[in-house]
């Protein structure tokens, strides 16, 4: 998928209350079991994802609503999930 740079943003750049659509993981992520696990719980391309809360300490991890569940992931990994930001 070729993306226009302005359209895509890392998930970590979204603030609580903001949402987007998942475009995919960064290119190296495919090789890591963690990102397979993300796929399995529902972080699928095209799926809507919303940032709900950030942790009081260091704003890390963040909680996101994706598919039907709410998950906490760290900023480091969220930075490797590309999303298309939804207009507020």
């Amino acid at each position, binding site marked *: 998928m070729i993306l226009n740079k302005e359209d895509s943003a890392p998930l970590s750049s979204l603030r609580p209350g903001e949402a987007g659509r998942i475009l995919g993981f960064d290119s190296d992520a*495919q*090789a*890591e*079991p*963690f*990102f*397979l*696990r*993300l*796929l*399995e*719980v*529902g972080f*699928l391309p095209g799926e809507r994802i919303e940032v*709900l*809360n950030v*942790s*009081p*300490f*260091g704003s*890390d*991890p963040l*909680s996101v*609503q994706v*598919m*039907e*569940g*709410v*998950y*906490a*992931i*760290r900023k*480091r*990994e969220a930075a490797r999930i590309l999303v298309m930001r939804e207009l507020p």
Partner: protein
Amino acid sequence: MSRKRIALVGTPNAGKTALFNALTRSHQRTANYSGVTVESAEADLRLPSGEVSVLVDLPGAYSLRPYTEDEGVLARALAGQEYDGMILVADATQPERSIRFILEVLDTTSIPCVIALNMMDLAESRGFQFDLSRFETETGVPIVSCSAIRKTGLKALTHLLEKAVNGPRREKHVFFSPPDANETREQSSRRILDFYKRADEIKKGVLLRAGDPDARSRQIDRIVLHPVWGLIILVAMLGLTFQLMFNLAQWPMDLIEGVISGIQSTVNESALPELVRSFISDGVLAGVGGTLVFLPQILILFAMILLLEDVGFMARAVFILDHLMGKVGLHGRAFLPLLSSYACAVPGIMATRTMEERRDRIITTWIIPLTTCSARLPVYTLLISAFVPNSEVFGGMRLQGLVMLGLYGVGLVTALAVGAILKKLLFKKGRPPLLIELPSYKRPSFRSLLKGLLYRARLFLVRVGTVILVLSVLIWGLLSFPRADNGSALPIESTYAGRIGKTLEPVLSPLGFDWRIGMALVPTFAAREVMVSTLATVYAVEGRNGPGESADLGEVLRKEWGVATGVSLLVWFIFAPMCLSTLATVRRELQGTKHAVFMTIYLFALAYGASWITFSLLSRWVG
């Protein structure tokens, strides 16, 4: 004929354990799988025909591609032939993810199966509507909607289960061809997407109306995860837990102690021969009673942990603490194991199994012995009452209470420091990633809570009844033999224990410990708290308080030892790895003697060093 074995399989947070508790009555046992004991249980399940089968609560998993060690257990269990049937628990409030998991399981195993679409009450209240007959035609597997908490749909479930178990085995790979054994990651991810595509097709026919998002949980999270309120709630919960553990537990503990010492004095006054009386009273009752006394504290701590986990708070605690804990190399999930360890290190170490990365497990396991388990309390209480004046320090606080708090603090700070060092060694490339589900808040099920507690109480009692009993008797033997030729007791320094103490004395004297303390330290490897009863025996047996009399032990110790010795012994107890069950658990859980040995060495080194410094300094200042 052997009983049929039924596997209970499901994703985490789908209410698997609640369903297990709703379906079974009692006779819960720990289940074992190929050498690993998983904290997971099995119990009798009565089928409608009256046949009794065994329901095995397998660990929850998000998929059959094992990511944690827990999940590996599930994948192996489903690949084998040991189960005659299976209940597949799915969360009705998460249809898409649940269907994908169901398809993956059905495709992997040929075990006859029935699907329990659990939490139907919650799903209905949020407006979900299903056409389950459609699901059955699509997959060929019977499905029942149920609610483990409200106990609806359970009869239909066991009915269909019995039918499935007595029917033929299913075909596997009805959806997709079997995966290649050395599938590349890319193939794996395509496979996951294929399953989701199929799940989506099925969902379109089955889900008549998608429910509303869980607005209530979102609202609660706005408070519980709030930068200020969230922290206040977390600290309050921790405070409440420890408060209950130490104050509420007091009266049942006094009761247990009273009953035990009542039996002891009855035995001592009876007409039994002296050796028999001593065996029952000082061997069996003193050892077992001294451990039994912790049951109330352990139960209160576990009740709080089970409750907080049941309502969904634990995952939030992990969320709040993850960043802070990362500074000392700990995974957010280490919170629960560490909290459990304040009751006992053994369940704490077992709880590390939910961590994905072995390195995370290692760090947490290595520092768990430094948390102050409740077995240290009686020793702390005794030594503090003997050597710390209960004078008032600033603002009405008592020095004894402060010292107690300080001992907890030193343990915790050391644990964090060790964590930080291990992080440097193990996590050169940064921490492994975190993924934790924040489940919907739920009303707790008190039946489930009670069952969980009874189960833990039983595990503890079995340990007291076996390991501790054997060790107490053994130690009593060391303290009572050999005897003089006419059968009467010899002075204590001539017993086996006394000889061990004398042998240890040269090593321990730099710490201010004489042979009696050395002798009393030997049985603490069985259980730390035995120190108190051994000291009582040592000083009573020596007859310094008159025959058979047990004067206030603290009083006696104050006369016998210097302050430097007392405090040095306190410090020793913060660090020393004196609990064989902990070391055995480490060995089993990390699957290597290496870890247990290194852990023993590092903890002994810490204990010896710290006690030596304490004693050297104090004996110079206080004399």
